[in-house]
Structures are given as structure tokens and as C-alpha cells.
């Protein structure tokens, strides 16, 4: 065994990068679920974001435009889901799964002709002063801007949910939509906005994969990242702080198992790969029953 060749600084640094796409997708889904909507279409919105973001980034030569387009595309796809589930009262689980399948097909179609091309470069920020701190500098302060945007979104969501009136309304809608409606809050409008925010975040997460992480587009690029994001939301028991831990745990295990293999450590990678999922199941078992939003997944109609 030779752990010497694993550089812990680089390991932790790459952990932050590996966790970013699932962190982005998960924080969006967290807001959606706190509003009482279960959108299983994260994977579909991610991959559509990844392909459209990539195409826009190639077309303009500017990665930022790519991220913008990806967020809009994700939100647009989510809006479709919102209209289906909020106005036409379709089943959320079925609509979400349909959205994933639709997204995968749409992405494969749109991506024809872009396979194997390379994304425009998106350089790392080297934050002055902070980036020069030994050990912590390279781990935390020398990444590309999207890593920090992801963290900022998590912090923003925490602040919004816990410290603002809007957040209170959103949580009320998610806990008991009939009571919120009786109090005069717009249940459907709140949910639509949450769904679109979730879609935009998923789109960003997908674009991060195709523009920064891989950085090329290929069919099936997200390879299940959207499902991991859904698991993280449950793992985090719908709390933004724990979501960060969950995303780093899932991202960390991915990076760690590759590092251990490259270092020639003979531990079966299967166990390591399944460990975050086992953790999620454990959390589900241990968790007190009441912590999921009360109206999660339920259809709302004002007449009732």
C-alpha cells in the first residue's frame, strides 16, 4: 500500500470541484421539495442544461453565456413540469420521470454534431492573498468561479429559507398547502417559482459538467448525477447546511476511490462506491418521521 502518492491537498481540492455539479442540482431540488413538490426530473434538466450550455458556450466562445443559457433551459424545462403538475394536476412522480426521459432524449438529439468538441476555457480564479495561504489556499481558494457561485447559492438559500418572509411563505406552502392557501398565499405561484429555480440550478449543474468538469459533451454525460442529487436532498433532511456535507461526501467518495485505485491500494471499490447510498438509507431510517415537508408530492387544488 502506498498512500504517499495521494496528495491530500489536491484530493480535497478536487473534492470541491467534483461535488459542485451535484451540489448545484441538489440545492435547487431542495427548494422545490421545501415548497412541497417532488420533481424527479433533475437528471433530465441537468443533461439538457449540459448540452445547451455547451452549445451556447461553443457558439459564443464565452463560458458564462453557456451557464446563462443552461440555467434558462433548465428553468424552461422545469416550467413545463410546473404547468403539468400545478395547473393540469398530473401526478408528480410520473411527470418527473417523464421529464428525465424526455430530457435524455432531447439532449441526445441536440448534441448531435457537438460530440467530441472542446469547451472554451474557463480558467481558475486565483484569489489574491487568500489563495496564497499554505494548505488552505490551494484547497479552497484556487477554483473556477462556479465553485464559489455554488457555495453562494447554498448560503443564499439558507438565508432565504430561514431569515426572510418569502422563505417562510415557501415553507408554509410546502408544509401545509391548504393552510397556506387559507391564509391567502399563492400556493401555485410560489411553487412555480420554486420549480423554476430548481430547474435553473439543475441546468447550471449540468453545464458545469460539460463546460468545466469533463470538458466536452458526450451523450449520457450526467450518468446518474441527477439521481444522486435527489438522494442528497433526503440525506440532508431538507436542510441546506447538511446538503453541503452530503454533496462533499458523495463527491469525496468518487474522488477518493479513483485516488485509491491510482495509488494501488487494494480495497474493493464497490464498497466505497456504495457507501454514500448506505449512509442515505441510514439517515432515512434514523431520521424522525416528521422532517419531510408535510405536503411533499401532494397535488393542490384551490377548490378543496
Amino acid at each position, binding site marked *: 500500500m502506498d498512500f504517499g*502518492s*495521494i*496528495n491530500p491537498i*489536491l*484530493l480535497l481540492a*478536487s473534492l470541491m470541484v*467534483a461535488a459542485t455539479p451535484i451540489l448545484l442540482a441538489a440545492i435547487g431540488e431542495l427548494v422545490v421539495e421545501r415548497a412541497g413538490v417532488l420533481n424527479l426530473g433533475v437528471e433530465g434538466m441537468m443533461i439538457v442544461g449540459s448540452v445547451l450550455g455547451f452549445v451556447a458556450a461553443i457558439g459564443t466562445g464565452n463560458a458564462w453565456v453557456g451557464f446563462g443559457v443552461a440555467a434558462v433551459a433548465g428553468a424552461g424545462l422545469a416550467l413545463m413540469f410546473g404547468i403539468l403538475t400545478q395547473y393540469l394536476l398530473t401526478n408528480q412522480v410520473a411527470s418527473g420521470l417523464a421529464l428525465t426521459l424526455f430530457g435524455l432524449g432531447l439532449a*441526445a438529439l441536440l*448534441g*448531435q454534431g457537438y*460530440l*467530441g*468538441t*472542446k*469547451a472554451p*476555457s474557463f*480558467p*481558475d480564479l486565483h484569489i489574491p492573498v487568500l489563495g496564497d495561504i499554505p494548505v488552505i489556499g490551494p484547497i479552497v481558494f484556487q477554483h473556477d468561479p462556479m465553485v464559489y457561485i455554488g457555495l453562494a447559492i447554498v448560503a443564499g438559500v439558507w438565508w432565504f429559507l430561514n431569515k426572510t418572509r418569502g422563505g417562510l411563505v415557501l415553507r408554509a406552502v410546502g408544509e401545509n398547502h391548504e393552510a397556506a392557501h387559507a391564509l391567502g398565499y399563492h400556493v401555485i405561484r410560489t411553487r412555480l417559482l420554486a420549480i423554476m429555480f430548481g430547474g435553473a440550478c439543475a441546468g447550471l449543474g449540468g453545464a458545469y*459538467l460539460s463546460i468545466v*468538469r*469533463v*470538458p*466536452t459533451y*458526450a*451523450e*449520457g*454525460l*450526467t*450518468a446518474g*448525477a441527477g439521481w444522486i442529487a435527489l438522494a442528497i436532498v433526503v440525506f440532508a433532511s431538507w436542510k441546506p447546511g447538511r446538503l453541503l456535507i452530503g454533496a462533499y461526501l458523495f463527491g469525496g467518495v*468518487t*474522488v477518493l476511490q*479513483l*485516488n485509491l*485505485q*491510482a*495509488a*494501488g491500494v*487494494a480495497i474493493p*471499490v464497490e464498497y466505497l462506491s456504495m457507501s454514500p447510498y448506505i449512509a442515505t438509507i441510514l439517515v432515512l431510517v434514523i431520521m424522525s418521521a416528521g422532517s419531510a415537508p408535510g405536503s411533499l408530492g401532494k397535488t393542490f387544488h384551490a377548490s378543496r
Partner: protein
Amino acid sequence: MLRRTLLASAAATAMIGGAALADGHEPVKVGFVYVGPIGDGGWTYEHHQGLLAVQEEFGDAVETVFVESVPEGPDAERVMTQMALEGADLIFTTSFGYMDPTINVAAKFPDVRFEHATGYKQADNVSVYSARFYEGRAVQGHIAGQMTESNIIGYIASFPIPEVIRGINAAYIHAKEVNPDVEFKIIWAYTWFDPAKEAEAANTLIEQGADIILQHTDSTAPQAAAEAANEAGATVYTFGQASDMIEFAPAPRVSSIIDNWAPYYIERTQAVIDGTWESVSTWDGMDTGMVEIGEITDAVPADVKASAEEMIAAITAGEYHPFTGPINKQDGSVWLAEGETAADYGDDGLAGLNFYVEGLTAEVPQ
């Protein structure tokens, strides 16, 4: 894609009205089952080039169909069965994991001819064919061993099957020959095609000091990851896998192994048309052109390029076998004595190779 092909073929059938062609023959229908998307830029892309070559060669006399991204396992059996039911005369199944499904389906359709790539199970109506990729790996190792500054070569492997292990051994032996300090770091991705994971693996290897990345997976993601690392100031070289991947030349991609299936596919289709098709086992290398080496770019020093070209010429002429003794197994026991070359089949033969050669430090996953 398949649907379009089907519609097109349905339309064609309707036009002909099920009648025979001018020369009195129905068009021969050739099916292809692909493991990845045809746009992977690697393995499946090259098989699809073979399909296009068949179309080009035979025109209306042959009708082709394909299904892409077919998972290895039961789903593959379903796809093959459907192809056979739709009247395919010859079906190429182009991944190792299709071996048992191909044999199973072939037993149900004795009149349909099957060709399975890279496997070893033959039947009366199942041929096997593969290319001696390890000949190309030897050239890669030869170049890589001289190009590396860190003496660490990263290797992204797919599944622990003989074909992949042969490649690792061939590359290692020839890298070691020119650079005794060279060390291999191997990551098993357990997939043929997962761009995010392949890129992640490439990044991990680069972080652990590798400045050459060899891949035995199908996408161009490791090339893109290496290019991004180079833009950030590193110097990493890669080799195209299965396809030329020339879009990443002159660096990081400095050369490549190209699988040229077209001549084989044309020959076998011709055999079906002529009625001379028989179950055969084909394993061709550089000599027949099934394995080609892509252009060695100017990033490679001239003397290294010259000696690599000598090696290519010697292998092509049959003067040099990449597994020529003395070579020991990883545990130190003798595999090949001085001057002995590896046999294709039998104990310790290349077809079933399941051990590393001496000097590799990792273990073959079980």
C-alpha cells in the same frame, strides 16, 4: 436513429413491394449492435465507419441497420432477437459483453449469421473477430516511456478482461524497455463509456503525477481533460484510443491506435452474398491493417518517432512480436523464455491472459 433507419427500410420495402431486386436477389440485411453512441469519437465511432464502408461498397445490394448504446446483458439479447426477427442475415455484435447474448440468440436463429467482436465463444453460425490492439499498445508504450518526465504513466482501464490486460502488459513492457524507472498507475473505470468518470480518472492520474495518459475506454473525455490540464500549465500527453481522435493533436494527443474494421466487414458481407460464409475466428493486427497507428505528431522528438516507426514496420512485417521473452509473470515465475513468443491460445496464451507481467505493482482485480 434506429427508428429512422426502420422507416427508411419500411419505405424502401414498400416501394419494391417485397419484390426481388433487378438481379433476382433480395438485398442482404446487415445489422450492427453498438455498445456506445456512434458519436463517442472512439470505439463505436470506428465500427460505424465500418458500416458506412459496407454501404458504400455494396450500395443497394445491402441494407444496414444499427442500434446504438445497447447495454451489455439481457437487453442486448432483446435487441439482437429483434434484428434477427426483422430479417437480418448477418449481425455484428461489437462489444466483449455481448458474448453470451450473441451465443444465446444465435442458437435460436440458426439461419442468421452472427459475428462477435473480441470474444472467444464460437458456434456454427457465430464467428469471432478481434484485432491485435496490443501491437499498437507496444508502440504507445515505446513512445510514452521516452516522453514521460515524471516516469509515471497513467492508464484508464475499463474491465479486467484479457483484451485490456494484454494492452496494459504490452504498453508496460515497451515503456520499461526504454525507461527502466517507469511506473504505471492503473484506474479501473468499470465502464466502456462514461465521459464524466473517464475525465475524473484522467484528472486523478494527472494529480498523482502522471504526465502520460493511456486509455482503454471509448470517449474523448480523457483527451479533453488532459488538454484542460495543459492549458492550466501542465504537460500531459495522451494517445487516441480505437479512433484517431485527431482533433486533440498535436498535443495532448501524440499518436493513436485506430481500429480499421471496414475491410473485414466488407469481406464478411461479401461472403454472405456469395453464400460462402463460414464460422471463423479472425484475429488480425497491423499486418492486415486492422490495427493502424495514427499520425505521430511533432510533439514527439524525431529520434523517438523514428524508432517507433521502425517498431511499427517490424511488427507489420511479422519480424517482431510484442510479447517476446524473456518475460516473467508478476510473481516472478517465467512466462516466456529468452526468444520465445507468446502463443495465442492454450495455458498462458494471449487470448486468455489474466495476469500482469513482472514490474507492474498493482493487482489485477478479481
